[in-house]
């Protein structure tokens, strides 16, 4: 198989890539808002919409199926919101309830459709786990158009979505309608999920939403790079899954994409610099050897108490070293204290606590039970 000559593979890879980019970028915000389960609830809730669209129109045209899926997915978010605002049921429980009810209804409708004596119904169940190989050129065109619209809106409302994700109350205080923004962002999430119905299916779609963002979060400390990286991871997994399933016989595309994403997430959680578990483990080891500032400052404060009338009186480093534990890094601690404005090296080389340092020392002593000196 050759990527550049095989038409089917190109279509499938393109569709999966579009899906990965859109879901990754929008999913980043779901991850940051701790609403990862929202994607799960919306995608499962798309199933009754798929079934109803077919029952009402008798058509399996992807566009009609997508519209049905989007409508019940969107309805599910409205029900979740109504439950949360009108009862004491918390957000995650409301998601669980809605997911179960909608998905159950979808399965009932699907079973009903399959019992119909009519050949046209065959294939609807492929929306459960996706069937990327069945993607047609016009499907990918629709997917790409929807993805482009969603990503354009995301770019236009970038700073508003950032505000919504970081500090919603502050956004309200600035005069932005945060509930409307929340509705738009959730709507975009529904669009991303609808894009993935044919490729990945309603069951595994939530992984497309959550995994790229969760992995990208590990590698960067800025929102822009995080969203771009999540989109890139989603695209790579989508294309990778399409290629892998075309090379290996009977390997399904959707589940393969999700498996690739899982590996990326696992590697990111373990090995990302800074936030990775391995790196954190090493840093904790080093932290144990870092100079402790508090003891040296308190010794300096204790010494200054002997000179009530002249608290700026200097004291030698050697004195402090004898007061400190043997392996303490006294010069390092003094330098750190000076850079924080807590201690001062006098022209004669002696050290004295600053006014600030004396107050901090008093506070530290109070924290430790205030037994005094």
């Amino acid at each position: 198989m050759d990527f550049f000559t095989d038409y089917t593979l190109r279509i499938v890879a393109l569709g999966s890539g579009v899906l990965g980019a859109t879901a990754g970028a929008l999913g980043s915000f779901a991850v940051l808002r701790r609403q990862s389960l929202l994607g799960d609830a919306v995608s499962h809730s798309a199933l009754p919409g798929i079934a109803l669209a077919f029952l009402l129109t008798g058509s399996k045209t992807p566009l009609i199926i997508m519209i049905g899926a989007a409508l019940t997915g969107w309805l599910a978010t409205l029900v979740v919101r109504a439950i949360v605002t009108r009862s004491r049921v918390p957000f995650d429980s409301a998601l669980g309830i809605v997911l179960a009810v909608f998905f159950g209804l979808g399965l009932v409708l699907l079973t009903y459709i399959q019992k119909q004596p009519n050949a046209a119904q065959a294939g609807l169940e492929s929306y459960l786990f996706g069937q990327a190989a069945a993607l047609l050129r016009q499907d990918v065109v629709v997917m790409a158009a929807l993805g482009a619209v969603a990503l354009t809106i995301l770019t236009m409302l970038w700073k508003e979505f950032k505000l919504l994700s970081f500090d919603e109350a502050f956004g309200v205080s600035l005069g932005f309608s945060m509930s409307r923004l929340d509705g738009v962002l959730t709507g975009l999430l529904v669009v991303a999920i609808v894009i993935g119905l044919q490729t990945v299916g309603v069951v595994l779609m939530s992984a497309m939403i959550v995994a790229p963002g969760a992995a990208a979060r590990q590698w960067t400390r800025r929102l822009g790079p995080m969203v771009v990286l999540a989109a890139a991871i989603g695209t790579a997994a989508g294309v990778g899954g399409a290629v892998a399933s075309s090379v290996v016989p009977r390997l399904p595309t959707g589940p393969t994409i999700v498996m690739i994403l899982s590996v990326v997430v696992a590697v990111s959680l373990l090995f990302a610099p800074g936030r990775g578990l391995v790196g954190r483990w090493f840093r904790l080891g080093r932290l144990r050897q870092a100079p402790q500032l508090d003891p040296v400052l308190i010794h300096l404060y204790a010494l200054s108490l002997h000179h009530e009338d002249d608290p700026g009186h200097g004291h030698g480093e050697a004195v402090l070293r004898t007061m400190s534990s043997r392996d303490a890094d006294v010069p390092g601690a003094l330098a750190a204290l000076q850079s924080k404005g807590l201690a001062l090296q006098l022209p004669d080389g002696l050290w004295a606590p600053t006014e600030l340092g004396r107050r901090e020392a008093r506070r530290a002593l109070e924290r430790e039970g205030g037994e005094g000196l």
Partner: protein
Amino acid sequence: MSSPAESYPTALEVEDLTVAYADQPVLWDVDLHVPTGAKMAIVGPNGAGKSTLIKAAMGLVSPVAGEVRVFGRAREAVRGDIAYVPQRSSLEWDFPTDVLDVVTMGTYGQIGWFRRAGAQQRDQALAALATVGMEAYSSRPIAQLSGGQQQRVLLARALVQGAEIYMLDEPFQGVDAPTERAIVDVLDTLADEGKTIIVVHHDLQTVAEYFDHVLLLNVRAIDSGPVDQVFTEENLRLTFGGRVGVLAQSAVNEA
């Protein structure tokens, strides 16, 4: 920006405000008048509704009854005139962004929908960071800030708004001494410029030192007004119930 502060003597008027969470009243029939240019502390026991009061004044929670007016006008008409500093602990400090970006958020109200922050907003944010002594930290990820630094960043974000009224929710909670000093200095400067400051405060010892007005709140407004008239042992007992021994020392000594 035009300043309604000069023309109207009362910055914030709260009338008959009642707020309830799930049928439980948190604020009951609260009246409050904050004179323009006042530095007011809101003091009361845990669960007294202190944070809820400023949230209701900001329109962040909707009251069961009552009215809030800002410089004599409906709050919606003067939204940009109130800068809000939420409780530090209410935010997700693991969010992937840096200090300058957070402070720049204070300019979003002026920028409006869709448009992005530019060089002018960046300069405003840097100036506000300098005011709180954090200019060296502008590109630092917020996940790496200490509690005191977080609080300064939030204060800088409010300063950028150039508002007439500043509402701060527990700004001194768990911050280091230099930060507390820095915040007090900034609030003093704002007060000198005629701005109105309302602070939810928990340390009774410093009320008289840091503020000139006080509201004693325990679901109901016990009393409010100038510190030297209102911050009395009698009122503190009404607000806090028992434990008067400790409180008596912090009440104003009419010496």
